């Protein structure tokens, strides 16, 4: 049972009001963050379920678990759910919503009601997608290329497309809210150069959400119109160009991968600073590299189309630009490493996830450069090499960062401490399971196993079995935090305001915070990551104001 408190429980955002209505009609960014947490976890399991079926099928070379058409639906739904209903919202909608106002010293986001609307749009899109899946699903791959998706497939493209369209507006409104909040709601003294790197990362992410998502939205509209009216915008038989679809689709979908990774990078900055007890090395470089990634990320989309039929001159340009976009990411990795150097390293669970991120993101990023080279690209396009590459970034990078962030801020969010021993074990299991799942896929891809195939030559079986085994381990690793986070809400030790003695305004208020975040509006007079001050002044309180 919870330890007895000598004084009555403080009023915080969780216990201020009870009842379903107070949650479903809330405008408190922290409650909305928790609403999102529940919903995206739900969709994570749906997407994971499809992954499980895929890996089960791939245990044997023959296509024996499901039919070919069904397999097409499995990988399509896995991709659509994981990308649009888990990865894209995850960190911004959960940790971003919760922390952005607190980190800048504000009472809430700029537009709290639009924040709630964002969540409802996400739910509506999610319900539409669920209905689509339950009534037949889609089999085009998450990329729904034309003319297959517009003229040939019999599956529910329009419905799935509209579900994504609605969820896309949720994403746009979140981004809009963050940008306005960061510009207009910073507490006195919170200058741009004092902002936590988490904020810079979310600012950059929001730029991408705002500028990129509308383009995929209009693409979906065009696909829906073409499919219903049998037009020829993308149909070569009627004079259309299928590559136009791909250009419009990837103009968003490439920057979308930066939506998925940038927030995770922001989290890693916070964790590494805290558990090395040091200011992030090269703060301005890391901050500006987030913006650079957002900008450059819009210049490289056709590297997904190298073998699709674009002109070789365009391919040259996009290849060069793709090398350029890797530079800011590398800048971050070098700066994080330099932060670790001569730091006072603590191996708490969040830090284990951050270490995992560093290694796995680097591998994913480097293999991205392999893919950016036209020669290699021709060899490994549409093979498991690509699958491994993006899972290293999205799972080894984004999800690790997300889990690290959930552990790091869990005491703040819930007011309880999670069990550290179990958390470190889970982190280790996730790391091992991840590598066992996806490293064999690099090899599989390189030796020629195509992606989106449900059968393969027998000589590939060993690697596939290893991959499936790894997926099982990974699944265990994901289940453990679900279990002990829930456990901690009832049985965990109450958390102090700042269990990590971390820098940042969010740690200067109670765990869990009051509804309006701060008892008094903070006035910031210190630089970000003032760990020397924090560690030196452990005996006395660091003043909030003045």
């Amino acid at each position: 049972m919870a330890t007895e408190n000598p004084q009555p429980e403080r009023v915080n955002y969780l216990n201020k009001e009870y009842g379903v209505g107070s949650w479903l009609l809330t405008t408190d960014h922290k409650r909305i963050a928790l609403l999102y947490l529940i919903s995206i976890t739900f969709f994570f399991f749906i997407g994971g379920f499809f992954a499980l079926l895929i890996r089960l099928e791939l245990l044997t070379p023959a296509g024996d678990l499901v039919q070919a058409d069904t397999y097409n639906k499995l990988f399509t739904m896995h991709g659509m759910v994981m990308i649009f209903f888990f990865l894209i919202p995850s960190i911004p909608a959960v940790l971003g919503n919760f922390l952005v106002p607190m980190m800048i010293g504000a009472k809430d986001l700029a537009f709290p009601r639009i924040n709630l609307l964002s969540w409802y749009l996400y739910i509506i899109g999610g319900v539409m997608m669920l209905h689509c899946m339950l009534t037949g699903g889609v089999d085009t791959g998450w990329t729904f290329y034309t003319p297959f998706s517009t003229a040939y497939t019999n599956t529910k493209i329009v419905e799935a497309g509209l579900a994504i369209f609605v969820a896309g507006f949720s994403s746009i409104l979140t981004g809009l809210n963050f940008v306005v909040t960061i510009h207009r709601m910073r507490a006195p003294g919170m200058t741009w150069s004092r902002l936590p790197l988490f904020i810079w990362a979310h600012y950059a992410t929001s730029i991408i959400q705002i500028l990129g998502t509308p383009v995929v939205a209009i693409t979906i509209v065009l696909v829906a119109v073409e499919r219903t009216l049998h037009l020829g915008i993308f149909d070569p038989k009627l004079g259309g160009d299928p590559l136009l679809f791909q250009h419009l689709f990837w103009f968003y979908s490439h920057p979308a991968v930066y939506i998925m990774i940038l927030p995770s990078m922001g989290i890693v900055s916070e964790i590494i600073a805290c558990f090395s007890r040091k200011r992030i090395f090269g703060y301005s470089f890391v901050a500006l590299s987030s913006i650079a990634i957002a900008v450059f990320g819009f210049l490289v989309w056709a590297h997904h189309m190298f073998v699709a039929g674009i002109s070789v001159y365009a391919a040259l340009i996009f290849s060069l630009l793709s090398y350029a976009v890797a530079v800011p990411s590398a800048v971050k990795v070098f700066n994080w490493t330099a932060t670790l150097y001569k730091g006072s390293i603590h191996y708490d669970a969040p830090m284990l996830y951050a270490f995992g991120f560093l290694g796995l993101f680097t591998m994913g990023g480097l293999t991205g450069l392999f893919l950016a080279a036209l020669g290699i690209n021709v060899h490994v396009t549409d093979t498991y090499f690509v699958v491994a590459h993006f899972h290293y970034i999205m799972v080894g990078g984004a999800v690790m960062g997300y889990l690290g962030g959930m552990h790091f801020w869990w005491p703040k969010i819930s007011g309880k401490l999670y069990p550290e021993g179990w958390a470190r074990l889970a982190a280790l299991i996730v790391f091992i399971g991840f590598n066992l799942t996806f490293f064999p896929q690099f090899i599989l891809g390189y030796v020629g196993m195509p992606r989106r195939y449900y059968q393969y030559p027998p000589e590939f079986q060993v690697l596939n079995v290893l991959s499936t085994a790894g997926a099982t381990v990974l699944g265990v690793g994901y289940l453990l935090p679900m279990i002990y986070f829930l456990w901690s809400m009832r049985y965990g030790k109450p958390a102090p305001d700042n269990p990590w003695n971390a820098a940042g305004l969010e740690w200067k208020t109670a765990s869990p915070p009051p509804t309006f975040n701060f008892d008094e509006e903070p006035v910031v007079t210190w630089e970000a990551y003032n760990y020397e001050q924090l560690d030196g002044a452990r005996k006395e309180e660091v003043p909030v104001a003045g």
Partner: protein
Amino acid sequence: MSEHSSSPLKTYVTIWLTLLAGTALTVYAATVDLGHFNAAVALTIASCKALLVALFFMHIRGASEKLVKLVVIATVFFLFILLALSMADYGTRAWS
């Protein structure tokens, strides 16, 4: 933006008349055979009209902060990227 920032009414009417004149001009220019320049002329006139609306009717000109100008410029820039880099493909396909 504070209360005193709106331009005087005279400016609004002048811009309005200019926009109408621009419309007439673009219709006239379309009837003249300028070959490939027809499109360029039409887009130039349209862009001037859009600029006038943005600067004077949407009050970008009087804006105290650079932020709004940055938002507009950034948006136009990324739209331009979409168009230009797509054309990098379509424009060079014939060369291969």
